[in-house]
């Protein structure tokens, strides 16, 4: 972290960590900051960013909501799960990152390219459209069957039902007007 911040023990807010304990299947406070996660992390070692699962877990334990939810680094965990395999206390950093990102999303913080991917899924049923052209390539170049049409309609209705469409500010593409 670029700036030093003093947290007085008397002001310590443990509510953030408590939220994690309620929602996850393990005790975050079991983390004794050994750093096995950061030492095992490919992003920390080779990614060229000051990414450290250990630091993020510490910030949660210190209750610094702002410093974790608004931290761009929380979007860098690739979810490779090596840290989870190695953690001597069965703390699961990738699950912590998923949970943090879900919390951040509720506060409107989502990488914009990921909202775009969500919009594609809601529109086409896939991350990217597989349309007539792609199907032509599949059939002629690779002798593959036509891809069964994804049921984007059901996927979108499910999303509406649990308000995922709202979470990612989904706007359906404008209905095509006039001739093609």
């Amino acid at each position, binding site marked *: 972290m670029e700036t030093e911040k003093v947290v007085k023990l008397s002001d310590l807010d443990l509510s953030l960590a408590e939220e994690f304990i309620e929602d996850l299947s393990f005790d975050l406070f079991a983390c004794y900051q050994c750093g096995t996660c950061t030492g095992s992390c*490919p992003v920390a070692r080779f990614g060229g960013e000051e990414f450290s699962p250990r630091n993020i877990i510490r910030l949660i334990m210190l209750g610094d909501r702002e410093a974790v939810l608004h931290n761009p680094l929380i979007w860098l965990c690739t979810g490779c799960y090596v840290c989870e395999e190695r953690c001597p206390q069965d703390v699961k950093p990738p699950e912590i990152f998923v949970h943090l990102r879900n919390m951040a999303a509720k506060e409107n913080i989502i990488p914009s390219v990921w909202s775009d991917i969500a919009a594609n899924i809601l529109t086409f049923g896939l991350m990217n459209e597989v349309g007539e052209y792609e199907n032509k390539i599949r059939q002629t170049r690779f002798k593959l069957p036509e891809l069964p049409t994804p049921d984007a309609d059901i996927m979108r209705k499910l999303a509406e039902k649990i308000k995922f469409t709202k979470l990612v500010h989904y706007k359906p593409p404008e209905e095509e007007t006039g001739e093609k």
Partner: protein
Amino acid sequence: MKYALFLGCTIPEKMNGYEASSRVVAKELGVELIDLPNSGCCGSPIVRSMDEQYWTLLSARILATAEKMDLDICCLCNGCVGSIMHANEYLKKDNAAREDINNILSDFDLEYNGTLEVKHFLKILYEDVGLPRIKEHLKIPFKDGLKVGAYYGCHMLRPSEITHHGDPERPLHMDEIINLTGAIASDYEGKISCCGAPVLSNAPDVAWRLTHRIISTAHDAALKALITICPFCSLSLDLNQIKVKELWELDYDIPVLHLPQLLGLSMGFGVRELGIFENRVKSAMKFPRFLLKNE
């Protein structure tokens, strides 16, 4: 051996050669793959990052569809298998959660009762087909001493409490399959290091550095190819090798083949049937020269 084939998003869009070679190899080995209708996205780790419940719903939808067909699911993609296995484990163990999810799905005449297994194609090859039977179908071996690297990717191995598939840090099952072809699956430092694909869209620089680590350590170990079994790994190592080569000014390249392409060559299928012309590092096209018959 009959499975519902779930393709996901990335294979039909970018990795037709992987799909084509998988179908060829499955057919040769007597694994029947029935396409799942109307399948759509598994949810993927990206959706999970935004809303875990929607992610579970999307995977549960696929499980419910396959359950109607009474078929276990075969995935070719690590991302898909990770998501659907995770949802499967969760819905099997937690009755209350299954009820909640089924309540939401019931509007669409879908219900999942937790009766299925979800398997990566590699797991089907290793556990259901088995090494002896694969060996019987490999007619043309690769020349002695051809060193290649197995690249497993993450989500078929980890988290091991969900995948139950091989050693999460020292996997060997793909290595054993590769060795049946006469090629020698060799270790290299980047073997279990993440390819970077999950952050490629939001942090490409980070993803490219992770890819570079794998390519460069494969080169250090004098490997003649990397063998993948996931479209995202292949995207990172093959398609993005061009970018990595430019950024790090590399004077070499390493062809990347999907495992079914390697097996298919040794079974006697051609570059065309196996879709190898699609692989981006073009030396992959010349890979058949390492087969004994082409000497």
